[in-house]
């Protein structure tokens, strides 16, 4: 480590202002603060600079995502070998799934970070690490059979039109990872809907074992085959077809624990989403107009991307509501809308993505009203005091 520090110190003058490579300063800076905590200090006022910069925060989210990534690798292999009717061990499944997700992660980071590096050079900004998490989230919410060029296109779309045009990390209205998914969803619906896209290799359709359909729990619900649903435990553990990282609620809950313990993710938003889902689920149970509505509400939490969206997508600090009360409202409405779209709109079997994107738009409005109501409440108090003092 010491020798690395020394090399960096020796190189630093070349990249500083007036140095030979001053144009690449942001690249150097990005590399340096990736390996060492930044040594920046403040010079005026009574401020202290925490060494926990954006990069460390992002790293914690990456750590929180690891359980979902690891389980996703295992499950992708498991589903694949199940679809071709081969018994497979844990390591064989895991190895297969991991090799399938690796190109996704590489392409996602290459394209996304490439664009961010270029944008930072053009603007003369520091490279910020907003993409670090997005780059891992995107592979985790894609069906495993999506062609890599579509993934690259979706990433470019999300980073350029979702983030850079608004001014880069921290300025975006929409969650870039969900934007990338929405891009594939609307652009190439054939790769994002139906029963065959969720299991690796099933689209090619070779040597498929008898009786294997690859349908996700949600598509079973929409087509009315609720009796064929996997058991609650199976869906909770996550050995079901689905997007790469979304299937296992256990893995996601471990991630949620990491996020909440470190204070990186807001527990209020997570609780809000589950609260909203619970309320809507109970309401639909009470109506019970068809078989899907009759499905016990707790099934909604373990199917599809509900848990994943609640823990990793809704809590994105940039696009979520900022006020404490606003976080509850924001989360609650996401939960309500997700279940509402899921159950009542057969065109969209999964509503979480659309619900979160929609609420991203409303987050500033929620904050505005929360702040206004707080101001009004205090104003009223002032007026009352003035009245009483006059008497």
């Amino acid at each position, binding site marked *: 480590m010491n020798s690395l520090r020394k090399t960096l110190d020796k190189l630093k003058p070349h990249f500083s202002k007036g140095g030979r490579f001053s144009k690449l300063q942001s690249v150097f800076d990005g590399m340096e603060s990736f390996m060492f905590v930044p040594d920046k200090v403040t010079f005026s006022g009574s401020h202290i600079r925490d060494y926990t910069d954006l990069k460390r925060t992002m790293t914690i989210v990456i750590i929180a995502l690891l359980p979902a990534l690891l389980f996703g690798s295992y499950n992708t292999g498991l589903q694949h070998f199940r679809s071709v009717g081969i018994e497979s061990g844990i390591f064989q499944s895991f190895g297969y799934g991991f090799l399938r997700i690796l190109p996704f992660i590489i392409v996602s980071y290459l394209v996304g970070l490439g664009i961010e590096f270029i944008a930072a050079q053009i603007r003369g900004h520091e490279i910020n690490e907003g993409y670090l998490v997005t780059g891992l989230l995107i592979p985790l919410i894609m069906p495993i059979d999506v062609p890599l060029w579509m993934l690259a296109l979706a990433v470019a779309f999300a980073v350029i039109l979702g983030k850079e045009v608004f001014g880069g990390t921290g300025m975006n209205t929409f969650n870039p990872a969900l934007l990338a998914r929405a*891009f594939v969803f609307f652009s*190439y*619906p054939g790769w994002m809907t139906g029963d065959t896209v969720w299991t690796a290799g099933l689209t090619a359709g070779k040597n498929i074992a008898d009786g294997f359909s690859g349908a996700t729990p949600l598509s079973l619900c929409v087509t009315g085959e609720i009796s064929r649903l996997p058991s609650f435990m199976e869906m909770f553990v996550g050995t079901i077809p689905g997007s790469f990282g979304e299937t296992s609620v256990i893995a996601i809950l471990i991630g949620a624990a990491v996020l909440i313990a470190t204070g990186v993710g807001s527990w209020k938003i997570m609780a809000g989403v589950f609260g909203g889902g619970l309320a809507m689920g109970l309401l639909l149970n009470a109506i019970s107009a068809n078989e899907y509505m009759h499905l016990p509400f707790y099934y909604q939490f373990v199917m599809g991307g509900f848990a994943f969206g609640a823990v990793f997508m809704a809590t994105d600090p940039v696009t979520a509501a900022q006020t404490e009360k606003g976080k509850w409202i924001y989360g609650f409405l996401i939960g309500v809308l997700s279940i509402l779209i899921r159950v009542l709109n057969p065109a969209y079997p999964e509503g979480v993505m659309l619900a979160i994107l929609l609420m991203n738009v409303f987050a500033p409005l929620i904050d505005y009203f929360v702040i206004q109501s707080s101001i009004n409440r205090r104003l009223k108090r002032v007026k009352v005091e003035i009245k009483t003092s006059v008497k």
Partner: protein
Amino acid sequence: MDIMEKESIFSPRNLKLLTEPLGKNNPITVQVLGICSALAVTVKLKPALVMSLSVIIVTGMSNLVIAAFRKYIPETIRIIVQLVVIATLVILVDQFLKAYVFDVSKQLSVFVGLIITNCIIMGRLEAFAMANKPWPSFLDGIGNGAGYGLILVVVAFFRELLGSGTVYGYPVLEKLGLFKTGYENNGMVILPPMALIFVGLIIWFQRSRDKSLVEKN
């Protein structure tokens, strides 16, 4: 005879009326008018071309007519008079399209009729034709119609190419053999929001080339 009337019909000042709306003062990308129909008719190149021509004719002719009558139109009912002129022209265009290019007319459906409500036309009448002579007004109308059409055609070209893989109905991408490599048409480009994004990209491109268009805030 005053000096203005001796001006040649294609003097630099008149030519500027014709060319400025194509770039620096484009009705769509700079004035941001007439966006609605730009979203609706730009899925394919052919309807976009027909729509552009229709709008060019209506803006040019209505500017000419209103400019000719501008001294006789009472101030208080000028909007109604303008609307009568526009509506007459639009109906003429609509009937013409129905007679000669029926299939395109069907594709454009209500949007030909809705040229009446296109903000560009009314805007040019109010801002230019009511205060200028017929010939400059005519040029101004043609220029603004063409500026509108230019953006429409550019957007429609990319939307058709990326969304349907064709250019003016000709399957370019298929002939290039692109589909064999696993390429697929982009379904989102056909949806109206994507037209808005394309217009946004054009505005971005234009502003990054011409810094004088960027507002100082």
